[in-house]
């Protein structure tokens, strides 16, 4: 059908102006919902500021003690000790403030992503139609290069931490939805039937049977959401979200290997600590004897 070899590289005949349509749509959305986006922007910003303030204001050792205690409580004393050593390394690399900004961003973005993905996952589990609609959208959100929705995010929310959060939420949400749906759908059918057979309402069955039994899967989703959020920090750095991502971007521009590595290793430390802590949280929440939330960085289990 093509007229010539030339048209393979530059085709005026079959040029589908998809990009322009999306641009027009974004324009329309921007103009029609300005108020809404302003509200979202200030809400996310306030959330971020609060968490960031809580992490940055106290002296670093106080924060380290709190985090290490939490790690000990959720997992083991070994993780507590590891947390202390890892975060001290971050301090010694002079990345403490950046790491806390990043942590705040990851926590806020993950919280929002989980708050959105849980109900979506529940909905998808209960309705086959919803599941069929949601699934391709999730695929799109997760595979579309993250830079692409940074652009509308920038337009809608202006430069700063908020477009970073929004882009992170969109990118990191998918496993939360998927694993919630999977978890609920794979609850033993007979147990759900038992709930029905004793006259329980759908809401009670969800709260008392499906969600508790889907917990291992849901917690695995939470773990993945947090990990994916962390993997977005560099991209968030590009839109001026600050934190470790900022330094990575800066080091890229100035070819600064030293700075790049120091910021990078700080991201890794945060990732390991967060991963192990959420895996520990998963094991605590899960009381059904099924395998606990999977971990991104499986270390050998020291105790059971």
């Amino acid at each position, binding site marked *: 059908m093509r007229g010539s070899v030339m048209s393979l590289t530059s085709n005026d005949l079959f040029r589908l102006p998809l990009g322009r349509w999306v641009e027009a749509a974004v324009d329309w959305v921007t103009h029609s919902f300005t108020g809404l986006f302003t509200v979202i922007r200030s809400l996310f910003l306030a959330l971020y500021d609060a968490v960031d303030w809580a992490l940055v204001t106290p002296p670093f050792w106080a924060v380290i003690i709190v985090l290490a205690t939490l790690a000990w409580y959720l997992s083991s004393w070994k993780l507590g000790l590891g947390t202390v050593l890892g975060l001290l390394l971050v301090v010694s690399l002079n990345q403490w403030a950046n790491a806390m900004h990043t942590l705040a961003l990851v926590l806020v973005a993950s919280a929002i992503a989980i708050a959105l993905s849980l109900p979506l996952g529940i909905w998808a589990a209960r309705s086959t139609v919803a599941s069929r609609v949601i699934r391709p959208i999730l695929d799109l959100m997760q595979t579309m290069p993250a830079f692409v929705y940074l652009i509308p995010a920038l337009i809608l929310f202006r430069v700063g931490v908020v477009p970073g959060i929004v882009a992170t939420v969109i990118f990191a949400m998918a496993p939360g939805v998927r694993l919630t749906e999977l978890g609920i759908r794979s609850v*033993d059918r007979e*147990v759900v*039937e038992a709930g029905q057979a*004793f006259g*329980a309402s759908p809401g009670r069955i969800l709260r008392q049977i499906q969600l508790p039994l889907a917990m291992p899967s849901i917690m695995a989703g939470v773990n993945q959401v947090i990990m994916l959020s962390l993997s977005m920090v560099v991209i968030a750095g590009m839109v001026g979200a600050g934190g470790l991502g900022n330094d990575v971007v800066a080091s890229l521009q100035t070819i600064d290997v030293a700075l790049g590595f120091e910021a990078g290793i700080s991201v890794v430390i945060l990732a390991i600590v967060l991963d192990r802590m959420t895996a520990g949280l998963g094991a605590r929440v899960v009381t059904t004897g099924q395998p606990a939330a999977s971990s991104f960085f499986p270390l050998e289990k020291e105790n059971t």
Partner: protein
Amino acid sequence: MNESIAVQAKNLYKVFGKKPKEVARRLSEGASRDEVSALGTAAVIDASFEVKTGEIFVVMGLSGSGKSTLIRMLNGLVEPTSGTVTVVGTTITDISQAELRRVRQKSVSMVFQHFALLPHRTVLENAAFGLEVQGIAPVERRARAQRVVELVGLAGWEDKLPRQLSGGMQQRVGLARALTAETDVLLMDEAFSALDPLIRREMQEQLVELQAELGKTIIFITHDLNEAMFLGDRIAVMRDGRIVQVGSPEDILTDPANDYVAQFVQDVDRARVLTAASVMEPASAEVSVTSGPRNALRTMRDLQSSAVFVVGRGRQYLGVVRDRDVMRQVKAGETDLRDILRKPQAVSPDTPLVDLVEPSIESGLPLAVVNETGKLLGTIPRVTLLAALGNVPLTTQSIPIMESPSRLTRRDISEALTETVGYEAAAGTEHRTGGRA
């Protein structure tokens, strides 16, 4: 509707597939299951039955015959394609979801094949689940659950999680959960099928005991004939979605409706299922105690047997007299059969055959089957017992009542009777011969 009917199913159909209504219509017009199989799976076809209050009603059939689908229509877990279900007076096939939930809370609970316990809750919390759904306050529901947990033999395990229990104990929790809900009707779908044979037997016995104690109406699904025979007051046999026979265990065993049922019952443990009542015969060799020894002797001569049953007023079973003893009495000129009466153990009509073997061998005489007021109902000669146990078809005609041929010859007896003709007046009239000739 009759008060004593707990569950009633009328012309129930369930078809899975694209056009369930059409399939059901064609089936009701006489199409076969295979003819409509392209349009959908007919899991239950035209099922109608009534379960009486306090009855254990067993539905039996091979895997895939539609048992689970049928039982799930009885509490609305599966919505029938057509037909109606009435549970304790409420027709559940045309009510709202909220009303249906109320019926499930109040009237019908369920025990599941794989227990279906809530794994994150303790034994006591599981048992109390039904009450929790009903909105009973925590203190009260714990107390009520505790009583039932003890009743099913799980005292001391209240705070364990299901996974810490053996299969049999888990199913006791399942049973406790259903009993705690205090519904009139209990649905049990292959409730014991996942258990070891020994545990299973124990659970069956416990269920029968509990039923006797609590008087629940139980609908029990199984693919195991022995289980069906042991538990069932009545049994419905299902095949390919249809109920092919409903009857008492004995009906099903002795009078199978078709080859399918006959084949099904072939390897049943008859000794435990069949009872004295199902194999006994009319006692033809039977004399009244007042009719005297000469009459007894004549009866034995006519029937060629070596002994006769002796009954009192209203056919009260008194015992047995043997020919030699009677002969001696006749020759001695005595008139009271009571003096030579032997009293071998009599059995009740609901004694399983397995428990008849010993008394039968011990006495060497036919067993007398006697009801609770002591009335003679019939007799079981040893050959009959052996035939029934050996799964040999029972002959329809009456087997000679005494297996051992008379040890006295006819001539001996006739001579004795003629010699002693003067004594006859002492006794009553004709000898009685009961039952068939």
